[in-house]
């Protein structure tokens, strides 16, 4: 794709137009065919759009995440040792018995996986161009073939920015969830999967007399809790979406929460846990936005505004009256 005939555009002209296209893309009003014509007409346009998108993602908090640890696949001859390492790691995953159901592991069909420790988060670019972000204490496995992309959230929480491509399936314990291109946040809650659809469509297959369903974003972001016996859909308002996705910015957001639930949420990120010693403290209503990486401001707020005593032991923060 080289520059077509016609006057050469300056980066500044292209930038102005790219901003409009990106605004339309974000607002869902973009005419994709017209956009492609514009982008393909001049490389300066394509660069300007990528630049605007990069800016948007940075400003929306994506730059906060860890630099990707896994490189793109390199299909040509010389593989790096890192690539070989990954292949070994994928095979090791299979040997570890994480995948049930008689999966054959040819080279192109092996599972890959990534995980985070408590308090860590990570962003990974997958070979299909999708991006997965792992919240604290999470593990994601995936396997791509020409006809299917399969994901498995083994623990924790994963945000998936899914590119177009082969059919994408998230395997739960019993149910399958088919995802379109789009943006999704998935959190494992025991045997259930809590899925937030931010863009695109999710289709939950039926099972054992339970009807399947389709969740889309026509009425706004929706979340669906998928368990073996049920799939419950709720519309998510802006505040709820903000709360669910706050971890992408290393934040934790409490709205209409109780101290008990807030502490439970905070403890996901902490190796040194917060323990409520006097149980009646659990029901105190709390709210606020805090950083996941440092509980001190939260404890400070609890201590001063709720008049709760915070003691620190080497392994825990203890809350008492």
């Amino acid at each position, binding site marked *: 794709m*080289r520059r077509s005939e016609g006057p050469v555009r300056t980066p500044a002209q292209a930038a102005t137009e790219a901003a409009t296209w990106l605004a339309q893309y974000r607002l869902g009003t973009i005419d994709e065919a017209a956009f492609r014509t514009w982008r393909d007409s001049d490389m300066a346009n394509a*660069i300007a759009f990528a630049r605007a998108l990069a800016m948007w993602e940075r400003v929306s908090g994506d730059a906060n995440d860890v630099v990707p640890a896994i490189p*793109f696949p390199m299909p040509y001859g010389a593989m790096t040792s890192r690539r070989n390492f990954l292949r070994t790691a994928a095979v090791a995953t299979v040997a570890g018995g994480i995948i049930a159901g008689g999966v054959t592991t040819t080279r192109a069909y092996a599972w890959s996986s990534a995980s985070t420790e408590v308090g860590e988060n990570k962003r990974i670019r997958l070979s299909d161009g999708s991006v997965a972000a792992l919240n604290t204490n999470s593990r994601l496995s995936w396997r791509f073939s020409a006809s299917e992309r399969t994901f498995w959230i083994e623990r924790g929480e994963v945000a998936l920015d899914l590119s177009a491509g082969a059919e994408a399936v998230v395997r739960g314990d019993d149910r399958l969830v088919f995802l379109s291109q789009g943006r999704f946040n998935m959190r494992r809650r025991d045997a259930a999967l809590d899925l937030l659809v931010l863009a695109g469509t999710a289709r939950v297959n039926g099972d054992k007399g339970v009807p399947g369903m389709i969740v889309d974003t026509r009425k706004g972001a929706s979340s669906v809790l998928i368990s073996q016996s049920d799939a419950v859909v709720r519309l998510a308002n802006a505040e709820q979406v903000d709360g669910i996705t706050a971890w992408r910015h290393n934040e934790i957001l409490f709205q209409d929460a109780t101290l008990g639930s807030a502490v439970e949420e905070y403890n996901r990120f902490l190796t040194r846990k917060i323990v409520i010693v006097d149980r009646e403290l659990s029901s105190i209503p709390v709210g606020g936005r805090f950083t996941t990486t440092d509980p001190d401001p939260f404890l400070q707020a609890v201590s001063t505004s709720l008049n709760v005593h915070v003691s620190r032991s080497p392994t825990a923060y203890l809350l008492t009256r």
Partner: protein
Amino acid sequence: MPVVRPIDRWFIEEVLPFERDLLDAAARWSDSADEARDLVQEVLTRMLSTEGWQAITNPKTYMLRMIRNMVIDRVRRAKVVEFRHLVDHDDFDVADDAPDQHRVTADRQMLAEVAEAVEALPERCRIVFERCRVEGHSPKDIAAELGLSLSTLEKRLARAIHLLALALEPRRGDPYETSGREPETRRRLRLPN
């Protein structure tokens, strides 16, 4: 083909973050900031139109070599060869494989710049931008809430994006001539006069 292609994703994550390094390198051999910018724009153009992008293992080194080759080409064609053009070309042959710490620091600095840039937006644009950056709002709801038409919302968001992109555009550490830049930001910077 989707709006955001795999090559765009790669370009955003593996190419654009090194733009400032490219500018630094280009500036060492250019007579003007404009010439350096042209060089970098040409590199970006080639990167975003390459079909073999998946095979590029180290985009930064690859691009620095590309700049070196372009400079050598220019030097060969130039009538007057300036001596400085011929110094330190060898720098580029040393692969720089340790950018991560640098990038982490740069990311942190970036976050501060982002906050500042958002703060500096005209209020109408900033409000629209803040509402739209949080996922999950439907555009219609945002428009209704702010009492705007969808088309006004779109225009203000576009303006916010444009101003932010300008404010956050990578540039060299030293303030340098920016003749190719949009006049509006320069006007704003000079406001006290």
